[in-house]
C-alpha cells in the first residue's frame, strides 16, 4: 500500500493511502474535536457525514477549512489544527449549536457525559452570542425504553447510521429540511408505535441528551423503601463487565463481587444473578434444540431448523416485524431475564411463602430493550409482571453514586442462593457467540453422554459480523451461525429464508453482544472498551469451577423440586413463550 507523508502542526507522519486527516492526527496524538464522527472499525460502524463541522482544520492551498474526519490525506499535505482561524471557526460552530440547544445541563440525563458540554467547556464558551433567536421545538417522545428529546438534537446523525446502516431497523430518518430538520420516525410519531426494537444503539451513540434511556432508578428507590415489599434483584452477565467504568474503576476490571456487595448495601432483600437463569435457559433451549434436531432427523416436517436463540428482546421484536413468516423458527424459550422473573414469582415466592404481588423483581441489564420486554403483556400474571423494574448498567452506577456507596472500597461478596449460582456457561451470554457456545457445551454432553474435552468454541468467538462454523456433536456435524448487530442478523436470516441449511443460530441485537448494549456505560466511540469487556466475561468463565449449565447444582435442584424436567408442562407454562406478527410501520 502506498504511504502518504502528512505534516500536522509541524509534526510529520506517514499514513496509508485512503487515510483521513483525522487518522493522521490520531497517529500524531494531535487532538481534533469531533461530534458527528464515529468509527468502530472492528464492528464496521462508521459515521462520517462531516456535518457538524467541529473538526475543521486548515489545509495549505485550500480555500476554505476542511473537515478532518472526511477529508482524505494526500501526499505532502500540510495541515494546521490550532490557528486562530480554525479556533474561531470551531468556536462559532459551537456557539451556533448552543444557540439551538436547551441549556438545561443541570437536569439533563447526559450531563457529565455530554460531548457538546465537554466541548463547550474546552473552548471556554461562557456566553452565547446568538441567544434569543428561535429554537427548534419538538414533541418529547417517551417510550418504555427510550426518551427522545429532539430539542437537544445536534443533527450528528449517528443514531440514524446505527438504526439504518448497522441495525437495518429503519426507524429513524432525517426528516424535514433546514432549521426544522431533525432525526425522527415516519410522521414524527412515537418510537413505541414503530418497528423500533428498543435496542438502544441510538442512545449508545448519541453525543448529547437527545436520546437517553427511560430512567427507572427512582422506582427502584421507592420499592426499596416500601416495607410491604420483598425486593430482589438480578444482574445480567454483561453488567459486571462494564459497571466499573462509570464508578472510577479501570475498564476491563471485573466488578462482580463489588456489584453484589453494592446491591446489598442499596437494600435489596436478596441479591441474585441472571446468570442463574442463563443456565436455566440453556437447559430449556438446549433441550428444545435436541428435541427439534432429533425429530427433524427422523423426518418430522413440523420440526423446523435452524433453531434461533430468543434471549434478546431487541432481536425478538425485530423478527416479529421483519420475518413474520418465520415465527415458528425461534426457540420458544423465554429470555433469562423473564425466566428469572417467572421462577422468582412462582418457585421462590413459594419458598418465601409470600404471594407474587408482594415480591418486586428488579433487573439490572446492559440493555434498554429489556425495559420493553418486561412490559410485554404476556410476561405478566393477572397484570402483575414477572419482572417489575428494569434499570440499565448506567442507571445502577447512578444509583450507587446517589446512595453514597464507595464502590471501589467495597469488599467482594457473593450472590445469594438459590437464584444466584451459575456456571461458566452463563457469563459468556453477554458476548456474541456466547449463548450458542454455552448451549453447545450442554447439548454435546446431553446428546452424546460423553464429556466435552475442549470447552472453548473459538470459531464462534470474535467480532466478525456473521460467523459460521461446523461443530461435531456425536454423529452430527452441526452447522452453526452467529450474528451480532441486527443488520448482520438480517443478512443471516435472509440466507436461511433463501434455503441455506443451518442447525442453530444465535443472534444478539447489539454489536459485540450485550457488552455493547444500549444500557452500558457510554463507549464514546472507543472500540477498545468493548474488547476489554469481552475479556472480562471470558475470564470469568475460565475461572469458574463449573462451566456447563447442566452442572449447576441449584438448577438441578430446581428441576428436582419444582419443574420436573426440561420441556415439562410446568416448564412450558413458566419458561416458554410465543411470538406475534407485527406491523411494519
Amino acid at each position, binding site marked *: 500500500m502506498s504511504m502518504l507523508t502528512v505534516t500536522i502542526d509541524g509534526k510529520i507522519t506517514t499514513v496509508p493511502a485512503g487515510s483521513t486527516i483525522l487518522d493522521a492526527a490520531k497517529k500524531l496524538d494531535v487532538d481534533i474535536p469531533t461530534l458527528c464522527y464515529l468509527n468502530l472499525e472492528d464492528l464496521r460502524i462508521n459515521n462520517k457525514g462531516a456535518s457538524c463541522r467541529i473538526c475543521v482544520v486548515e489545509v495549505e492551498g485550500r480555500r476554505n477549512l476542511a473537515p478532518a474526519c472526511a477529508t482524505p490525506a494526500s501526499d505532502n499535505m500540510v495541515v494546521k489544527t490550532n490557528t486562530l482561524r480554525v479556533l474561531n471557526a470551531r468556536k462559532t460552530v459551537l456557539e451556533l449549536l448552543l444557540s439551538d440547544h436547551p441549556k438545561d445541563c443541570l437536569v439533563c440525563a447526559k450531563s457529565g457525559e455530554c460531548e457538546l458540554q465537554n466541548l463547550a467547556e474546552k473552548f471556554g464558551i461562557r456566553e452565547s452570542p446568538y441567544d434569543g433567536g428561535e429554537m427548534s421545538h419538538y414533541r418529547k417522545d417517551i417510550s*418504555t425504553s427510550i426518551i427522545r428529546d429532539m430539542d437537544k438534537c445536534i443533527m450528528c446523525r449517528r443514531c440514524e447510521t446505527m438504526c*439504518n446502516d448497522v441495525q437495518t431497523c429503519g426507524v429513524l*430518518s432525517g*426528516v424535514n429540511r433546514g432549521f426544522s430538520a431533525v432525526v425522527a420516525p415516519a*410522521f414524527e410519531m412515537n418510537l413505541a408505535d414503530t418497528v423500533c426494537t428498543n435496542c438502544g444503539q441510538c442512545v449508545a451513540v448519541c453525543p448529547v441528551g437527545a436520546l437517553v434511556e427511560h430512567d427507572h432508578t427512582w422506582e427502584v428507590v421507592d420499592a426499596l423503601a416500601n416495607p410491604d415489599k420483598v425486593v430482589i434483584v438480578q444482574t445480567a452477565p454483561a453488567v459486571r463487565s462494564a459497571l466499573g467504568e462509570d464508578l472510577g474503576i479501570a475498564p476491563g476490571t471485573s466488578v462482580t463481587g463489588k456489584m453484589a456487595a453494592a446491591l446489598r448495601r442499596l437494600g435489596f432483600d436478596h441479591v441474585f444473578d441472571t446468570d442463574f437463569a442463563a443456565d436455566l435457559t440453556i437447559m430449556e433451549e438446549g433441550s428444545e434444540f435436541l428435541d427439534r434436531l432429533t425429530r427433524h432427523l427422523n423426518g418430522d416436517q413440523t420440526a423446523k431448523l435452524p433453531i434461533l436463540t430468543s434471549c434478546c428482546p431487541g432481536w425478538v421484536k425485530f423478527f416479529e416485524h421483519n420475518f413474520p413468516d418465520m415465527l415458528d423458527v425461534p426457540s420458544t424459550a423465554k429470555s433469562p431475564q423473564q425466566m428469572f422473573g417467572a421462577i422468582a414469582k412462582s418457585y421462590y415466592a413459594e419458598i418465601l411463602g409470600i404471594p407474587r404481588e408482594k415480591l418486586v423483581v428488579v433487573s439490572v441489564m446492559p440493555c434498554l430493550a429489556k425495559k420493553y420486554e418486561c412490559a410485554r403483556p404476556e410476561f405478566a400474571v393477572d397484570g402483575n409482571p414477572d419482572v417489575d423494574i*428494569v434499570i440499565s448498567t448506567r442507571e445502577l452506577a447512578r444509583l450507587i453514586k446517589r446512595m453514597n456507596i464507595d464502590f471501589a472500597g467495597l469488599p467482594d461478596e457473593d450472590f445469594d442462593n438459590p437464584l444466584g449460582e451459575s456456571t461458566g456457561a452463563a457469563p459468556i451470554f453477554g458476548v456474541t457467540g456466547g449463548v450458542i457456545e454455552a448451549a453447545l457445551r450442554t447439548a454435546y454432553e446431553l446428546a452424546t453422554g460423553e464429556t466435552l474435552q475442549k470447552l472453548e468454541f473459538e470459531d464462534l468467538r470474535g467480532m466478525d459480523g456473521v460467523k459460521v462454523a461446523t461443530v461435531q456433536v456425536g454423529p452430527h456435524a452441526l452447522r452453526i451461525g452467529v450474528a451480532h448487530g441486527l443488520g448482520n442478523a438480517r443478512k443471516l436470516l435472509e440466507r436461511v429464508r433463501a434455503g441455506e441449511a443451518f442447525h442453530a443460530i444465535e443472534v444478539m441485537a447489539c454489536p459485540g453482544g450485550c457488552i455493547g448494549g444500549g444500557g452500558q456505560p457510554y463507549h464514546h466511540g472507543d472500540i477498545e472498551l468493548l474488547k476489554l469487556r469481552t475479556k472480562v466475561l471470558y475470564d470469568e468463565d475460565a475461572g469458574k469451577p463449573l462451566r456447563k449449565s447442566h452442572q449447576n447444582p441449584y438448577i438441578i435442584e430446581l428441576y428436582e423440586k419444582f419443574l420436573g424436567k426440561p420441556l415439562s408442562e410446568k416448564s412450558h407454562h413458566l419458561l416458554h413463550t410465543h411470538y406475534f406478527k407485527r406491523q*411494519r410501520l
Partner: protein
Amino acid sequence: MQTSTCQMVGECRMPEHAVLPQPLYREVVQFIEALPQKEGHLVTVLHKAQSVFGYLPIEVQQFVADHMEVPLAQVYGVVSFYTFFTMVPKGKHPISICMGTACFVKGADKVVHAFKEQLKIDIGDVTPDGKFSIDTLRCVGGCALAPIVMVGDKVYGNVTPGQVKKILADF
C-alpha cells in the same frame, strides 16, 4: 409497571387517514413493476404517486414504502425534504405565487399578503371549503411578468395586491 407515555407537546404531524380508490393504487403498482429496478427510484415513484393521488397521505407513503421495500421513515424523510411533495390535498384551485427575486423586487410579498388576507388562510393551507390553497414557489422563469401568480394552469402576470379580489372572483 413501566408504560409508554406520549407527551403531546407541540403538534403531532401524523396526517389524517384517507380512503383512496383501489384503481389508483394499481396504477402506482404497475408503474413500480415497470421500473428497471427499484433501487434509486424512490423520488420517481413519489412523483408518480402524487400525480395519481394528488397528494401523499400516510396510506400512500406506506404503500410506496412496502412496494419499494424501503423503510417508511425513509419515505417520509424524502417526502418532507422536497417542497414539491405535499401530504395535504391542495385546493380545487391551487394558487401558486412566485417568490423569485424578480417577483420579490416587484412586490410579490405584498401579493402573498393580500391573498392570505382575502382567503384568511396561511401559506400551505386550504380554505375550509376546499376551493383554494396558497403556496409560494421558486422562480417559474417568467420574470418579465413579475410578479406572477398561477391559479391552477392559469397565469396572471404583473399582479398587484389590488387585483387579488378580481383574480379570486374568476373562480
